[in-house]
């Protein structure tokens, strides 16, 4: 890796650090109904929507009521998306005559967008009609993010409320997330991206005469809008099949950095929001520091591993001074690609600007590792929830070690919280390991792997890790278009989202009912560097213990075979 690589990581970390305070404060004010500078414009709109939909924003629900409404709405959207994908052949706005999707593909696609995963099993240009693209995909890019964000908000309310089991009004929170957070941010950054060369037009493809005298059609469209919300909401589904490697999606190293910042922005700000809810900004900063440190380490490692091409490539006489350029765009080079890769897997976005399949074994291992940990920022909302699961366990161990019943921000962590937290903690690795192994054991599924040996294990593990972590990025090298993969990855996406949300919101409900204990000398403080260090240690050790065998047989085995 180069000094430029280091500098880029530093720039990203510093800019994110500068942005989380204003954005985090804004988000907090939105959800706590406090005054914001956008009130004059959005206030009347919000009031109109609430009145139109008969939403009483002051009517709050306990955790069960809150999550039921969230799941009902999410599943209604998924079902609606499924219908449109199935029936698109008979619906308008289908100039390319895309037929209705097969049930398994429609299921996979609907779940993928409904769960903020944006795994694209279909070929965008030929298999989805304009109606599907506009209504389903664009809608989900807002709604799935909003439901993730409000889950985190509900959890934080649970942490901060004093013997009050109510977590808020889901519908009001959901509408506020879209109207007051996602729409303004999307609009703002659309305007930033356009001058950088990202097209924003409703015209059809451009027809040009090439140098060879051939006619060529160049696809274009409202790319900037999509590109903005795709990254702000950690969605990741591209306008073009080439995703963020396409020059219209990500024209230059500058746009590359901006897209990276957009991916990290909301997840990082949510950590600051946590500090505000806990009335302890220092707490927010400490967790932010721990998570950003993890991000810096992983981004740095990816760059470092990618700086050396495989010896096999070296032996062919190819110039490898630029590092492992296989599968990377020359406009970005190794460092920018690696940073983007680490960001998209950390923040559960899933957009790609390089082929992850072509990374060095260890570089690829870091990318898959970021998704396995699922806590290096993570997606908007869901990421913070995953971080909080780890915080609960860190607090539990630390509390025991100082000789007190563990407590976090004055709330006792007792067997009910541990039991529910354990479920949330186990779901993610069990889902990944289970589906990966199942698919390697079933011959027809195993044959979908295009590479033999350890790399095949990595490819299979990546697919299910990406689905379970609701990331959506594809490693490649795996023919995933079969009904088997459509169904299994779809199920993994559902498990990775709702099987974690439900127990974790139950934890929030349980914590909300508890008293907040006063702090004393004997209380172990969670807003110190010591806690940050312990949190990092626990995340890495639990992650490593869980996934080490898979990583040993996949990327590590491949690495030692290649590099010796």
């Amino acid at each position, binding site marked *: 890796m180069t000094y430029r690589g280091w500098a880029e990581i530093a720039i990203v970390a510093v800019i994110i650090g500068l942005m989380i305070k204003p954005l985090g404060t804004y988000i907090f004010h939105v959800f706590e109904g406090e005054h914001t500078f956008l009130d004059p414009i959005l206030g009347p709109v919000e009031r109109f929507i609430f009145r139109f939909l008969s939403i009483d924003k002051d009517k709050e629900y306990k955790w069960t009521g809150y999550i039921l409404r969230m799941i009902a709405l999410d599943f209604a959207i998924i079902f609606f998306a499924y219908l449109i994908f199935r029936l698109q052949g008979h619906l308008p706005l289908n100039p390319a005559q895309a037929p209705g999707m097969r049930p398994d593909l429609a299921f996979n696609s609907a779940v993928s967008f409904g769960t903020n995963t944006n795994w694209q099993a279909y070929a965008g240009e030929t298999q989805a009609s304009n109606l599907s693209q506009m209504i389903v995909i664009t809608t989900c890019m807002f709604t799935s993010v909003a439901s993730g964000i409000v889950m985190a908000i509900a959890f934080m309310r649970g942490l901060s409320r004093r013997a009050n089991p109510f977590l808020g009004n889901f519908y009001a929170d959901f509408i506020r997330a879209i109207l007051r957070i996602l729409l303004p941010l999307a609009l703002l950054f659309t305007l930033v991206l356009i001058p950088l060369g990202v097209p924003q037009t409703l015209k059809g493809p451009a027809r040009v005469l090439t140098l060879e005298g051939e006619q060529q059609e160049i696809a274009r469209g409202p790319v900037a809008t999509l590109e903005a919300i795709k990254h702000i909401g950690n969605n990741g589904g591209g306008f073009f099949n080439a995703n963020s490697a396409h020059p219209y999606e990500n024209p230059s190293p500058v746009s590359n950095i901006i897209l990276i910042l957009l991916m990290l922005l909301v997840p990082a700000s949510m950590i600051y929001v946590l500090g505000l809810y806990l009335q302890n900004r220092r707490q927010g900063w400490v967790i932010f520091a721990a998570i950003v440190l993890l991000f810096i380490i992983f981004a740095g490692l990816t760059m470092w591993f990618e700086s050396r091409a495989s010896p096999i490539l070296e032996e062919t006489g190819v110039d490898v001074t630029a590092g492992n350029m296989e599968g990377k765009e020359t406009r970005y080079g190794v460092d920018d690609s690696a940073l983007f890769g680490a960001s998209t897997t950390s923040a559960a976005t899933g957009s790609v600007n390089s082929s992850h399949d072509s990374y060095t074994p260890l570089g690829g291992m870091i990318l898959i590792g970021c998704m396995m940990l699922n806590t290096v920022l993570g997606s908007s909302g869901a990421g913070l929830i995953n971080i909080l699961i780890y915080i609960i*366990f860190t607090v*539990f*161990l*630390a*509390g*025991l*070690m*100082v*000789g*007190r*019943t563990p407590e976090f921000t004055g709330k006792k*962590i*007792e*067997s009910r919280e*541990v*039991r529910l937290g*354990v479920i949330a903690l*186990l779901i993610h*690795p*069990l889902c990944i*390991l*289970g589906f*990966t*192994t199942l698919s*390697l*054991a079933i011959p027809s599924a*195993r044959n979908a792997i295009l590479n033999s*040996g*350890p790399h*095949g*294990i990595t490819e299979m593990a990546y697919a299910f890790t990406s689905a379970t972590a609701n990331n959506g990025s594809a490693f490649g090298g795996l023919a995933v278009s079969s009904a088997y993969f459509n169904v299994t990855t779809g199920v993994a996406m559902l498990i990775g989202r709702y099987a974690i949300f439900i127990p974790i919101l139950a934890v929030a409900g349980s914590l909300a009912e*508890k*008293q*907040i*204990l*006063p702090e*004393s*000398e*004997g*209380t*172990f*403080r969670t807003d110190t560097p*010591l806690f940050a260090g*312990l949190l990092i*240690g626990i995340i890495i*050790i639990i992650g*490593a*213990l*869980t996934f*080490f*065998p*898979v990583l*040993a*047989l996949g990327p*590590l*085995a491949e*690495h*030692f*075979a290649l590099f*010796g």
Partner: protein
Amino acid sequence: MAGNEGKAEAGKLMDAALIKEAVINSFKKLNPMNLIRNPVMFVVEIGAVITTYFFIRYAINGVEGGQGSVAFAALISLWLWFTVLFANFAEAVAEGRGRAQAETLRRTRVETTAKLLQDNGEIKMVSAGELRKGQVVVAEAGDVIPGDGEVIEGIASVDESAITGESAPVIRAAGGDFSSVTGGTMVLSDQIKIKISANPGESFLDKMISLVEGAQRQKTPNEIALSILLVAFTIIFLVVVFILSPLGGYLEARPDVTSLVALLVCLIPTTIGGLLSAIGIAGINRLTQYNVLAMSGRAVEAAGDINTLLLDKTGTITFGNRFANEFSPFEGHNEDEVGEVAMLSSFGDGTPEGQSILTLGKKLGIEVTKPENCVVVEFTAETRMSGLDCADNSYRKGAADAIAKYAVAAGHVLPSHYEESVQFIASQGSTPLAVARDGDIIGLVELKDVVKPGISERFERLRAMGIKTMMITGDNPFTAKTIAGEAGVDDFVAEAKPEDKMGLIRNEQGQGKLVAMTGDGTNDAPALAIADVGLAMNSGTQAAKEAGNMVDLDSDPAKLIEVVEIGKQLLITRGSLTTFSIANDVSKYFAIIPALFMAYIPGLASLNIMRLYSHHSAILSAVIFNALIIIALVPLALKGVKYRPLGASAILRRNILIYGIGGLIAPFIGIKLIDMLLRLFHF
């Protein structure tokens, strides 16, 4: 002294008889029905059964390909059984020690005979073991009290040294706060009737023993929470190991079952899983060493979480016995005169108050020699005064009203302002004693509350633990403030009635705090019952002892501090060993994963960073280390990780360093050493 005996026993952690019994019990505990209560060790036992099966199969049919070998299967099976046995042994030792301690305490009460008062008024001699709750027994001077009970008639002095180690006799009388007697103590004077309050097997000692013994032991809340976490780790590692076969199969690498079971056992948290119940039992045992009997494990745990400590002033912060502070003469007499008479009347008085009068006199330079041929007038509960009758003069000191009566009876008039002077001393929180010569009251002695030496250091220690101390006293605010300042408590409530304690506790609990208190009176019982930790004094009433969840046999209220420390120590030991257990896993992966797959995927040999000798030696070393570490940590589990009141961050930093970082590094060294040893045998 019972207390010292207990501590002496703690010094040598295990003696031969105890170990022998524990070894036998560790085999008995292999019963799966018993072991299933501990899911982690249950999984190890199943693993041991599986490897033993493969060992037998290999031994009969020969090894069926792969990397198995008969000797390897035999050794792995053996060490897996050891792992279970070692964990059982830890639990058995802890139980055995608890039983031994209880036996020591119980020994006093076995061969006692009781004088049972029958309905027809006759007395029948029965064995103490036959007594039932509600029966009435008679105890006279020289009798050992046959069981716990309440005095319903009479007053007597009782020697409780068998239980408390305190040699000074105590007064036990019907009604009031001093009506409770304990089995095993001895009546020194007078006769009392006692209503037995517990059936055999229901006494505090029996309750304590049931907390220690396996069958009835209930898991405490925190133990349950931790068990859930351990089960979660076990599930994760079951899945991780289970998928290794199909994953490896994709690469044509199929590790043998024996090795996979070995990996599983190494990964699941056997260290903490094996020691968890021993830690809990040892916590209760440690309390017993301090002569505190816990009635529930939950209370021991709660002790570690205490936020507020409610302390009675008298007896806890200050000596219950007050010390002479000043001689104040009435008109016509001087200080030395009062001092002299007070000292003379105290020559036969062995109580701390009496001795303190002599000490004060000497300090003031009053020279008095004990006159010859005098008769000591002992203090009795009826006269409430004591003194000395000599040939020429008689000297008395005693309660102000008792002396007043005595003076009037002797034909003297009370000094002017007598009532006012007595009231004034009382209003200062001190106790006035009147002093009379030949029936003439010449002055008063002010007996003052003295703060126990070292008590402020103890409160300092509590503050460092994050515990707020609150003193409760019936004194006026002025006196209360003086004592509170001297003792260094954080807060005080003056002019409090015993009934006010309930309100105070509820108030603190309402803020989410955990409250501990000590008490001995019947009017303390409701407060003891709602306090999170209610430490009842053994000298207190039966009602108080039943309401509390701990009983202090020494009746030393300041012992709450030790109780809190033991509670914290319990949690710290659990947390530290859990951290250690999980940190250990990293090295085990590096030992076993390359060993499993090196033969098929040569590149993975690079992960063998310990450079272990062979596939078999690597796996066996990890399994042996895993088993031995349980035995090695038994003493720590029994003694507990040392608690220092350093503040939470310092403790955490220290324990992370020792058990976290240490837990990462230690097994790398241990496994390597065992491997070097195995290499000598070319294993």
